[in-house]
Each structure stands twice: as structure tokens, then as C-alpha cells.
């Protein structure tokens, strides 16, 4: 009895697996959530704090995050700032979409393999399209 049980396959296996859409959006939900928590809320506090401190502090914020006109390190951080801001909007749209997916899973719906995979992929399509639409609106209007 004990010997025959030993030969049985063990599942889930720690090493034998392949990526699926649900796994990908699950880890993306955690990564985007923590990115928004640290980088997103950090930037929000810098922005509102600078705005409350006065025109000079706000100009320093703009220079470091977007403009880079003062030269020096800001020329580099302004490029980084744009990447981070675009990344944060994508992270918000992705986290919101997978968050809604979780709310639906919480009521017990959407666990069929095909349905689950389809909606997982759609959250990523949604977040990429909305990020492009958002920045197209901001930069082109």
C-alpha cells in the first residue's frame, strides 16, 4: 500500500509546469499593485506635497519627473519619469481589470478553463489599449 502510493504523480508539481494566462495575470496583479503602492502613491505624495509647498517646489517636481530643463541629473530622471508615469497608468488599468476579474471570481463565476483564460487575456488587451488611448489623448489633444 505504502509503496504503490509512492509511485503516484504529485500535483501541482514544483518544476513541471508551463505558463498560462491566469498565472500571468495573477502575478501581474501583485506586481502592478505593489508598483502602484510604492511608486504610484510615492509620486502622488510628492506631487501634492510640492503643490502645497509652493511654486518653486512644484517646479522642482515638474523638472525631475517630466521637463528635465534644468539639465544635470534631471535630464535623465525626466526620461525615467515619463517611463514610470506611462508604466503607472498601464499598472492602474491592468490592476483595475484584474481586480474586477477577482471580484467576479469572488462571486463564484468564470472558473471554466476556456472562460478563465479568455478573460485573463482580455484584461491585458484592455490595459494596453487604454494606456495607448490615455496617452494619445494627453499628448495629442
Amino acid at each position, binding site marked *: 500500500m505504502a509503496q504503490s502510493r509512492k509511485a503516484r504523480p504529485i500535483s501541482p508539481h514544483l518544476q513541471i509546469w508551463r505558463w498560462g494566462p491566469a498565472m500571468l495575470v495573477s502575478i501581474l496583479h*501583485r506586481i502592478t*499593485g*505593489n508598483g*502602484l*503602492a*510604492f511608486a504610484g*502613491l510615492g509620486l*502622488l*505624495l510628492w506631487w*501634492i*506635497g510640492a*503643490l*502645497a509647498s*509652493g*511654486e518653486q517646489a*512644484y*517646479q522642482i517636481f*515638474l523638472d525631475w519627473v517630466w521637463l528635465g530643463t534644468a539639465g544635470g541629473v534631471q535630464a535623465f530622471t525626466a526620461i525615467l519619469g515619463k517611463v514610470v508615469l506611462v508604466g503607472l*497608468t498601464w499598472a*492602474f488599468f491592468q490592476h*483595475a481589470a484584474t*481586480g*474586477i476579474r477577482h*471580484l467576479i471570481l*469572488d462571486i463564484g463565476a468564470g472558473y471554466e478553463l476556456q472562460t478563465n483564460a479568455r478573460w485573463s487575456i482580455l484584461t491585458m488587451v484592455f490595459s494596453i489599449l487604454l494606456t495607448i488611448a*490615455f496617452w494619445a*489623448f*494627453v499628448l495629442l489633444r
Partner: protein
Amino acid sequence: MGNGTSIGRVRGLGSSHQGTHHWLTARLTAVGNLVLITFLIVSLALLPDHSFATARSWVARPVPSVALILIMVNTFTHARMGVQVMLEDYVHEEGGKIAAWLLVNIVPFAAAAFGILSVLRIALGGA
């Protein structure tokens, strides 16, 4: 926790009787964030420019200032809970757990207090 009697070996290892509130609050604040953060980024995108005067006068208006204060409460609560769950999954050493506990219970409150004060200064016209 003892290691003698069978009841002594399991005492203290059961349910903490408080997980549901954490789970439910995470969902509740998630719905709040859908409204609040959407309002924030749509409003920022619609501003005519992002100069000091424009941004400050937008924050000073009643609805945006209330929304920003709610963000400081709602979003920081949600972020705090999410970071806590992440740390619970990845931090296993005792020292790390204490550091994580301090981080999760101090930083979000200090950060939210700073945010709320900043909004109030702008909204109430302080210099």
C-alpha cells in the same frame, strides 16, 4: 504552545478569527479606488495645462479636494493591505517579519497624514 498533551500541541494554531474583515475591506476599498483613481487620472488628463496655478486651483475646488482626501484614506488602506499580504507571502524570517510589521503599520499612516495635510493646506487657502 506546549508539546505535551494533544490539545496543547494544537492550541494557538487555529483560525485567528479576523481574516474576513481584512478580505472584505480589501474588496470594499478596491471598488472605492475604481471610482476615485479613475476620477483623478481623467481629471488630470482634462486639465488645460499642468502649471502650478492650474493644478493648485483644481485641487482647491471642493470635489477634487474631497476626492484627494478620500484617496489618502481609501487608496492607502487598500495599498497597505495589499503590501501586507505580499510581505506575509515572501517574508519568513522573524526579524524580517518585525520589519514588515513596522513598515505596514507606520509608513501608510504617516504618508496619508502628509497627503491629507497637503490637500487641506491647498483647499483651505493656507500659504
